[in-house]
């Protein structure tokens, strides 16, 4: 069983469109959406939710007004500025370290467990799909990503599937690290812009840091051929194979608006190229 993760560094380069197409092309796989704080893959896969689970993670401090003597100890030790001058807790700032509750001389601070989100196991016409929804303004996206990856891996092993295909989040921070770690291959989707090149470079460095082999595709490559050339040159210097170049194709947006992946929607140049990409991956 192989785990393939689609990442990009820069947002909006086409990760989910490519992942949605891979869902239609790959057989015997489980799909996973690890962009848990702005998940979109469900808009292409139309899941029928079979299992729904609460994701409990982290804590938030609560000050019991009746016991609080307003001595100020908690305010002076909190490094996150989470305790307001009126001795109530600002939940978005509280990181749940519990130091305040441990030092409060009155024992007036208790810690409450957060329900930080939900995760789901679903059926789709392209097979099983594991996805999640991080609660609004919640933390611990990395832990939720780790959780759904573990569920997907178990599901793949139990059913003897060949692939786990993961739609990753943008950036290089904790949810990206959690999406990458232990994957067999990272597919970077970038675009021919200065930002696309800059950000792909950083995410490549991240993958190298975790010893994950990388392949790259340039989406909308014909919008700037010079920049596409620069990306190819950059990849050559890093020994990263460029396994696809997708043209700027208006069919992609049309398919998206109808909630369809580009393989099933219509014969199109972008779909043909992703077909080639999948041959290069599998």
């Amino acid at each position, binding site marked *: 069983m192989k785990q393939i993760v689609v990442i990009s560094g820069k947002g*909006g*380069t086409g990760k989910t469109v490519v992942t949605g197409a891979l869902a239609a092309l790959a057989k015997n796989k489980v799909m996973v959406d690890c962009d848990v704080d702005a998940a*979109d893959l469900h808009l292409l896969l139309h899941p029928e939710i079979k299992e729904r689970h609460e994701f409990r993670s982290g804590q938030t401090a609560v000050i019991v007004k009746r016991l609080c003597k307003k001595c100020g100890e908690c305010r002076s030790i909190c490094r996150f500025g989470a305790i307001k001058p009126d001795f109530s807790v600002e939940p978005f700032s509280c990181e749940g370290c519990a130091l305040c509750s441990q030092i409060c001389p009155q024992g007036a601070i208790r810690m409450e467990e957060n329900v930080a989100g939900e995760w789901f196991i679903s059926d789709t016409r392209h097979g099983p799909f594991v996805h999640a929804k991080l609660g609004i303004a919640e933390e611990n*996206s990395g832990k939720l990503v780790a959780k759904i990856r573990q569920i997907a891996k178990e599901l793949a092993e139990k059913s003897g599937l060949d692939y786990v295909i993961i739609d990753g989040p943008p950036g*290089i921070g904790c949810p990206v690290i959690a999406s990458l770690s232990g994957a067999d291959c990272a597919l970077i989707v970038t675009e021919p812009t*200065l930002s696309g090149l800059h950000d792909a470079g*950083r995410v490549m460095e991240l993958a190298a*840091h975790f010893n994950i082999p990388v392949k790259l595709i340039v989406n909308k490559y014909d919008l700037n051929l010079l*920049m596409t050339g620069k990306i190819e040159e950059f990849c050559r210097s890093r020994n990263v194979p460029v396994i696809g170049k997708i043209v700027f194709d208006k069919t992609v947006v049309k398919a*998206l608006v109808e909630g369809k992946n580009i393989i099933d929607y219509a014969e199109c140049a972008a779909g043909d190229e992703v077909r080639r990409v999948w041959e290069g991956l599998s």
Partner: protein
Amino acid sequence: MIISIASGKGGTGKTTVAVNLALSLKNVQFLDCDVEEPNAHLFLKPCIKDEVRAYIPVPEVDEVKCSHCGKCREACAYHAIAVLPGNSVNKGSVLIFPYLCHGCGACSLLCPQKAIKEVNKEIGVVEIGEKEHLQFVHGRLNVGEAMSPPLIRQVKKLINPTRTVIIDAPPGTSCPVITAVKGSDFCVLVTEPTPFGLNDLILAVEVLRKLQIPFGVVVNRSDIGDGKVEDYCRNEHIPILMNISFSREIAVSYSEGVPIVERDVSYQDKFINLYINICGIKNEADSCH
């Protein structure tokens, strides 16, 4: 006034709006808080004058003083400390996992032996510079570091309240975005008229409502896709501050790292108009309170 530019979905045009708005106004300070993938410098090409390393405090244990009592392990909410108790043969030891540490200071403060001191671990760099009259600050997270919020907080410490502050936020709806937009007087949400754009816009709107920050929407590539973002905004009484039509000129200029207002000055008026719209809505929101 502090104006942050956020989006939910990545790649909708946050940096394009932030950079062009900044270049169309006077007396601006620009903060790029997308420290995982900072891009604004590619467009503004500021002259960097100063560089400050950013650190978070992580514990270091003095094995001589340590009694391996395990109090630090209990105190750490992030499981960043493991303690192997000693026995008649081995002395015992403490293992620290710095990448899990949030730097809360609980372990060092609560250690009965005073055996833990905090040492600085570098997580990235804050660079400060200028482009003509515009002040520029951005953070750059070291590759492999998981936590961006401490670095974003360092960037925001340099906010200059005498200027119009424009914050380019990271995508998403979780901690890095909240750290970036918190304390803003107004937030501009940039979206695109596709199902992905709409889905992520709705999430971003929920975040801003929770944070009680007034906001409005910029629809980028407004003539592709469908009309559902517009319908949603109308139903939710969310002001649309600006529509930017898809143009190859903007796309090419973006790809080359050239702000569109520098290639076509007529765009300046559009971004000044965006600022006027922001001020109007902000004043309206203020007079309601």
